[in-house]
């Protein structure tokens, strides 16, 4: 695997940090939003510019600082990181546009602070995507936790405070209490923390400790919301919807899953997972989360809560895909990172649009809303198709590969889990749409005139909905990237 050195990964991380002073210093709100857009576009272009290199099979690395003997803060771009970075940075552009519509219509306070911390959170996300070793990963993971706290607690009310506490308890408590000792133990035993293709602790760490370490990491990266460390996610829904959309459907939660996958493949390696039978343990943890989250989602009346529990379930799909230890399953999981992101962000955008236009948060109050906001609800329909996994939603491709993966790995029970959870997904999404569109005029709670969300909200959500369908027909570059990842991990076997 050829590697070149370039400062571009560092620039990609840095560009939104540098935008923060610019955002803070401008008086005019339009300029402030302008700087956010500029940073988002710049970030996406830098990342996109590195894509051809990665698709050729080359990796890019850059050392920021040698902070400890034998461990540095170092960035390395490979296919896995590139996939995640592309998704996040593209969706930031869309979310910034959405934020403008949302925050302005609701006349939210402290918007400058909001945009600043958003920029910092994206910096941290890209930092995680491009981390070359466990220390850098931990650094950016923590930075993300602290950068998103002011966003979650944006409303500065009692509810915000208690949700903030839960957020901290689960996310920071687990990273300091579980990940940090695991990381230091590995450093003590092996003297290095660099991710390697087949992991690097096989043979050095005694087998008995492997399962403790795996559990420490799976639960320690609580951003992945593996049960029982999931309660922070529904609590975080008190944040403004753009935060929930980008961060808690795409950036933060995918960071958690990304970290788990990165550690499972880069530190432990597939061989070690198989020989220590930790793959089975992780499979069962993930499948429990999938089913339990989907069942809980059915009982939620608040739309954002339902979406939150849906996210918890979908995240464990990706963890499951890694634990299957099969090439097709890995492709499915990688693709799901992208497909779920586009689908879920559409759903969250719709939820926010509904709140901005009508003030409703609960599903029971959304009877007949399709008549009033047809565009929004149609996009909601498309988004749910993608998440459920029905064509032409892009999610169909990722679920298809996941199913192939379960067959390849001879895990019939997992196939059953996947299919039944898809049914549950349908059960908690489709009734919303049915009630929204197909109800009698008496039942409808809304008048029969069209009164959509503001255009700054509407355009982004249509864009992401169209992307979800587009990705079904043309899933590049994600598919190629996913294939490179899969080949890289399984070529040793």
């Amino acid at each position, binding site marked *: 695997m050829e590697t070149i050195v370039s400062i571009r990964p560092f620039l990609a991380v840095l560009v939104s940090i540098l935008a923060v002073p610019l955002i803070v210093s401008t008086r005019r709100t339009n300029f402030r939003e302008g700087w956010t857009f500029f940073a988002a576009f710049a970030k996406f272009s830098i990342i996109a510019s590195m894509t051809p290199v990665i698709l050729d099979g080359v990796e890019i690395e850059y050392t920021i600082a040698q902070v400890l003997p034998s461990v540095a803060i170092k960035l390395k771009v490979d296919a896995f990181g590139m996939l995640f970075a592309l998704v996040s940075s593209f969706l930031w552009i869309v979310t910034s546009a959405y934020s403008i519509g949302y925050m302005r219509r609701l006349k939210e306070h402290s918007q400058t602070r909001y945009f600043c911390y958003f920029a910092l959170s994206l910096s941290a996300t890209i930092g995680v995507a491009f981390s070359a070793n466990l220390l850098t990963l931990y650094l950016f993971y923590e930075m993300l936790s602290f950068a998103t706290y002011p966003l979650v607690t944006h409303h500065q*009310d009692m509810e915000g405070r208690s949700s903030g506490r839960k957020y901290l308890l689960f996310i920071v408590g687990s990273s300091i209490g579980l990940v940090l000792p695991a990381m230091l133990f590995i450093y003590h035993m092996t003297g290095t923390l660099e991710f390697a293709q087949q992991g690097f602790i096989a043979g050095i760490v005694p087998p008995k400790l492997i399962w403790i370490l795996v559990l420490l990491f799976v639960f320690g990266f609580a951003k992945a919301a593996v049960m029982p460390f999931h309660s922070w996610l529904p609590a975080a829904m008190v944040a403004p919807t753009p935060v929930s959309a980008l961060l808690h459907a795409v950036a933060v939660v995918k960071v958690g899953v990304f970290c788990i996958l990165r550690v499972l493949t880069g530190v432990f390696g597939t061989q070690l997972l198989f020989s220590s039978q930790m793959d089975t343990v992780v499979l069962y943890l993930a499948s429990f989360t999938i089913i339990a989250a989907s069942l809980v989602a059915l009982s939620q009346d608040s739309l954002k809560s339902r979406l939150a529990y849906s996210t918890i379930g979908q995240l464990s799909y990706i963890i499951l895909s890694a634990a299957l230890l099969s090439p097709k399953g890995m492709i499915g999981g990688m693709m799901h990172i992208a497909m779920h992101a586009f689908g879920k962000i559409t759903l969250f955008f719709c939820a926010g649009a509904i709140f901005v236009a009508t003030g409703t948060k609960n599903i029971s109050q959304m009877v007949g809303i399709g008549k009033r906001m047809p565009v929004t609800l149609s996009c909601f329909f498309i988004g749910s198709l993608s998440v459920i996994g029905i064509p032409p939603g892009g999610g169909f491709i990722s679920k298809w590969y996941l199913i192939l993966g379960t067959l390849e790995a001879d895990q019939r029970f997992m196939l059953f889990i996947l299919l039944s959870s898809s049914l549950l997904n349908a059960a908690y999404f489709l009734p919303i749409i049915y009630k929204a569109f197909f109800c009698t005029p008496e039942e409808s709670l809304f008048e029969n005139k069209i009164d959509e969300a503001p255009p700054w909200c509407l355009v982004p959500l249509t864009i992401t909905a169209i992307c979800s369908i587009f990705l079904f027909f043309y899933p590049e570059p994600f598919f190629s990237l996913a294939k490179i990842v899969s080949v890289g991990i399984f070529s040793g076997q």
Partner: protein
Amino acid sequence: MSQHFPAFIIVIPLIAAFFIFTAGWLKRTYCFYIAAVALAISLFSSFGLLLQVLQNKVVVYHFGGWSPPWGIAYRVDYLNGIVLVVSAAIAFLNLIATKKSVEKEFIERVGPFYALYVLFVTGTMGIVVTGDAFNLYVLLEIASLTGYALIGMGTEHAALASLNYVFMGTIGASFYLLGIGYLYIATGSLNMFDIASILPNIFQSNVVLFAFVICLTGLFIKMALFPMHTWLPNAYTYSPSPAISLIAPLTTKVMVYVMIRILLSVFTPSFSFKSMAVNTSFVWLAVIAIVVGSILALSQQSLKRMLSYVMIAEIGYMVGGFWLANRAGITGAILHIINDAAMTLCVFLVAGNILYRVPGDSFDNLKGLFRKMPFSMGAFVVGALSIIGVPPTCGFFSKWYLITGGIAAGHYGFVAALLFSSLVNVVLFFRIFEIGYFEPFGDLHISGSMDEEEKTFDDAPLGMLVPLMIVAAGLIVLGIYTDTLVTKVIQFAIPGGIS
């Protein structure tokens, strides 16, 4: 000129103290400037010394030309070179940062205050730079007495707190003196390195053992290691803010330095660490200090008092790290001396800024501070993240070494205590963030423009903010340059025999 740097470090502030005192009568405004010049020269000399040490490994200075063991020799090597620079920098930055605060609190007593300040720095720097055991006692008492006086200048129960500190501090220093006396009986010398060369012949002697025990006990009292920590919270809480941001970062850390110096250079590791039972017991004592300090901090209702209990826990980090008796642990302890001094300065400067604008520092007074004093609170966030141990701030890296040292020594109780303390620190500091950020509760949707936010802005004056920002930035710089610090300086400070 440059060969006299060791002398300049303490003689210049000492002489300056007299000038400041007289200027206090004649023309008060000169006091600050004399102090600033003296401390700047000290800082410059310590930098110069560190550079000399990096080149020559050791710098030895014979006072008055008398060679040891008859004369007093000052000896600077890697260990005290770096601690000197850190102490001088803290004293200087703190002087600049607290100028406005001193003028507000002590306007008629500016002369005595700065004289005491500079004498305290003399004593503290002297402790670090000296190579003579009795000279260390003298300078220790200089630093302690001026510390007592500075603390006693505070409000409320400051005098009583200081008197209690006097009692405990005197016991501690006297025990140290007693220990030195026994070493003198056994070896006939007072020069640290001379003693070190004579001691190996008499390691079995009870005299040496007693000296070891009593010296350590005295030092533990002075550094507020549990259970001899009871003087610290009261003394730190009631002390005036300009004084405490000088005393808190320096006193206890310099005592830890003295412990390391005595145990590594005088008694040498072969004696200090040979009994595993002692090592493990001291680590467990440190564990108790960390746990008790963290838990007691949770029940406090005022900022400075909470911070002083956090300090007690931090002492546990350093003492425990050292007694792990492996390279990673001792590196962590030395690194933490540097890092903790910087972090302590940062948070206590913020406390000083807050007290400059707000009547008290109980948690009720901290409402809405993020809006009112965003820059000070921003620096407080950096300091808090460093105490919690979040990369890339320096606090994370000293915890890194301490935890790896604990794992290497198999002392998982110490590792657990460190993690526990980090988690408790998250709770402690986020409680303050919550009060400053969320309260007072109100409908914030009315305003959306930036003008509203500016009306409540009332941060500390620039003269207090700029040094604070430098310190906060320094925390991150120290973190990123950990590798340089460890490989260029600290690793040479640890004797070769330790693995």
